């Protein structure tokens, strides 16, 4: 299974095996990784699964749709160029090794 690395705000890294066709958000939530709330469970409704994709990332990412783009203006932490909602980041084989950084807070 593809491995995704979640870097908490305090710098602690957790590497998780995420099933193909799951999302970066699901990988975190299923494994109880703190720092991703995902209150709506992946419905692109709440903006509480915000992550910063590692600036060095070269792996292909799902395209950003309008709903995600609008939600990202309302996350608890500042939107940056590499901001994404992790519920919209699909995991296929191509994301093996992806690193995401979690913001200080989601609510």
């Amino acid at each position: 299974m593809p491995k995704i690395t979640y870097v908490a705000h305090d710098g602690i890294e957790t590497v998780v095996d995420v099933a193909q066709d799951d999302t970066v958000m699901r990988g975190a939530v299923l494994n109880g990784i703190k720092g991703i709330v995902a209150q709506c469970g992946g419905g692109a409704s709440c903006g509480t699964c915000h992550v910063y994709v590692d600036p060095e990332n070269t792996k292909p990412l799902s395209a950003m749709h309008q709903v995600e783009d609008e939600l990202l203006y309302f996350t608890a932490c500042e939107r940056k160029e590499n901001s994404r909602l992790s519920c919209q980041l699909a995991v296929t084989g191509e994301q093996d090794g992806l690193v995401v950084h979690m913001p200080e807070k989601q609510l």
Partner: protein
Amino acid sequence: MRGESVVVVGAGQAGCQVAVSLREQGHRGPITLIGDEQAAPYQRPPLTKDYLAGQTDLAGLVLRQDSYYGDNGIELVRGERVVGVDRQARVAVLGCARTVSYEHLVFATGARPRTLPIPGAEHVLNLRTVADADAIRRKLDGRTGLDVVVIGGGFIGLEFAAVVRKLRHEVTVVETQPQVMQRAVSAETARHLTNRHRSEGVQVLTGTGVAAVREGLVELTDGTVLVADLVVAGIGVVPNTEVAQRAGLAVDDGIVVDAHLRTADQRVHAVGDCARFASTLTGGLTRLESVQNATDQAATVASAILGGAEPYTALPWFWSDQYDLKLQIAGLTDGHDRAVTVGDPAEGRFSVFCFKDDRLVGVEACNRPIDFLMGRRILEAGNALTPEIVASPGFDLRTSRQQAA
């Protein structure tokens, strides 16, 4: 306070979140999470959406993977029901006669589908659990063109209708009220949803009830007879309060709790669909059925068990997916006396701002997530956005936030 044992009765979204929040907030004592379903705790909203459409399986619904519970010292008891609580002895009694003692007990017993008091109700399926969804999927399995009758035009009924229509069945929705989602949305939003279902080929009948169901037929109160290969009802739920009542706790369409979600017994709380709580928003007793309410109340109670003193004040919000419409509702729009529509309903992108006594009480955003999120913030801030501001030409929530503040 640390080290005390907690028993959570019910392992749905609310119960699971109580256990998760307790651990996240640093609770070190034993946690026993008891649910009567065989499945590990899972999300219910996709049951009427992706799960029914066959786009995800149970593994895609579970809230945590199985190893999470053991790894975090949470004993998950599946397929067992709590049948009694002895508050003097502080023990929960399971159906298998096992007893679990507690320092704190949380009722998260949820609700069950309301049944139709009509002849032939045994032919009607419900949609609350993964087992219910599986039964419906087996009926639909691989086929198209079945006649499906949906009793009730609420969230469940309409979401179900949308998915079944996409699976190319012939769908009729029967709603006794004059409009669909009568208690949940404004007339404008209800009209739009109705039109959308009709344009997709769903027959929506309002103002008529179901008199009887027979094998293959549904008889309506107006005399109409519908052919039905499958009948599914979504006519509301009844909170599961029996165990709390037998334990001597106050029950009134829900387990009655104060603004801290505590019963008269300070060691016993209730959260989620089963809890009728003193709402700081409405000023009265309120019971809400939503993921937001379940998870936010769970976090409040976890904090209370650890010595926190904050009441539950979270703003309610809801969402529904039907076809490509994403309806997001912030606040409680029930009982509003004025509604102002912004945007273009014809294009399926609009918001309805609902006011009561000229105060904003809720925003219904249809494919306008910014209005939903801005609406949440404005409502959370107790903001005085007036009908006049919203109705003024060129009103745009994105630019008027400061103006309204």
